[in-house]
């Protein structure tokens, strides 16, 4: 029973991070720096929200409390959301958006690599499909970090500022969460130590090519997305996203 709950909790973390990233990408609609980027951003968003649905469907089955995937997405409060802090940060300029995606992708990819071999077939299935998408996401966001880092003086300055602003949130990509560590031991979840190592290596490599200075490792601080301790930005995002299902609680759309 407890493992069942732990697993549901883990799935919500995966789903929430994917959904919130997708929601932030929706905000770019009609505002991207080039038309080609509109398509690219929307593609990533479609992949991620599709993945979120996959995780929520399974979480809903495990929770078995009458809620479905939509209820999990649209009817939970911000304290119940389990996404990484990095993904809820406002889009800012394209440097911030790019870097947010990159930090997330560099965590997401090794996570899915492991999950695609999960001892749980259902998880392995969702992750297997998501892995192909995440490989492309990572490639794309890495290239953009390199372009902006090693582009013009202005782009270098902007993405350096973005690193400065966002770096503290990367603690969540490298810390070892006890619940995930436990689940990983049984082969259900991704091993946080492996993910952390991969994340650091990938980020270091791309930063070098992007001529960006790699900061000292981030340190833990008060907030913790996995525990539902979010920045104030998440509540605003959810208020907008959840507006209709909350205004009309019993409605079908």
């Amino acid at each position, binding site marked *: 029973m407890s493992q069942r709950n732990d697993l549901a909790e883990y799935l919500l973390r995966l789903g929430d991070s994917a959904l919130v990233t997708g929601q932030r990408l929706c905000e770019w609609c009609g505002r991207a720096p*080039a*038309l*080609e980027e509109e*398509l*690219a951003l929307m*593609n990533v968003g479609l992949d991620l929200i599709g993945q979120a649905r996959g995780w929520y469907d399974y979480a809903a089955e495990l929770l078995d409390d009458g809620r479905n995937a939509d209820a999990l997405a649209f009817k939970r409060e911000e304290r119940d959301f389990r996404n990484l802090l990095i993904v809820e940060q406002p889009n800012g300029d394209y440097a911030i958006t790019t870097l947010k995606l990159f930090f997330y992708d560099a965590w997401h990819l090794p996570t899915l690599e492991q999950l695609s071999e999960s001892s749980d077939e259902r998880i392995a299935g969702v992750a297997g499909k998501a892995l192909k998408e995440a490989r492309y996401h990572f490639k*794309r966001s890495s*290239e953009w970090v390199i*372009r902006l880092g090693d582009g013009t003086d202005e782009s270098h300055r902007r993405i350096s500022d973005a690193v400065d602003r966002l770096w503290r949130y990367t603690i969540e990509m490298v810390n070892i969460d006890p619940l995930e560590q436990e689940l990983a031991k049984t082969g259900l979840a991704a091993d946080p130590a492996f993910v952390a190592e991969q994340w650091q290596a990938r980020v270091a490599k791309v930063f070098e090519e992007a001529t960006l200075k790699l900061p000292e490792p981030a340190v833990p601080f008060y907030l913790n997305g996995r525990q539902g301790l979010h920045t104030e930005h998440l509540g605003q995002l959810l208020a907008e996203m959840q507006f209709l299902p909350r205004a009309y609680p019993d409605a079908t759309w």
Partner: protein
Amino acid sequence: MAEWTLFEVFVRSKHGLNHKHVGSVHAADAEMALENARDLYTRRNEGVSIWVVPSAAITATASDEKEPFFDPSEDKIYRHASFYQLPKEVDQM
């Protein structure tokens, strides 16, 4: 002024043998052109392989020269399999 380069895009579909011209994209470099082409021209799983070529690098026939350029091949019907009528027993060739 165009900021990015115009690339022509060729896609080989799952069942198609050759790459086929589908349109163009703008991109800063060839790698980005490939990705932009992927997002634009294969949203519905249309392709297994993409080529991009800077539009400026393509030399094309003027369509008004169609006759001298292509008609000479029109009468060489022996180049086509249907020219050779085989007995029914071996007609699957």
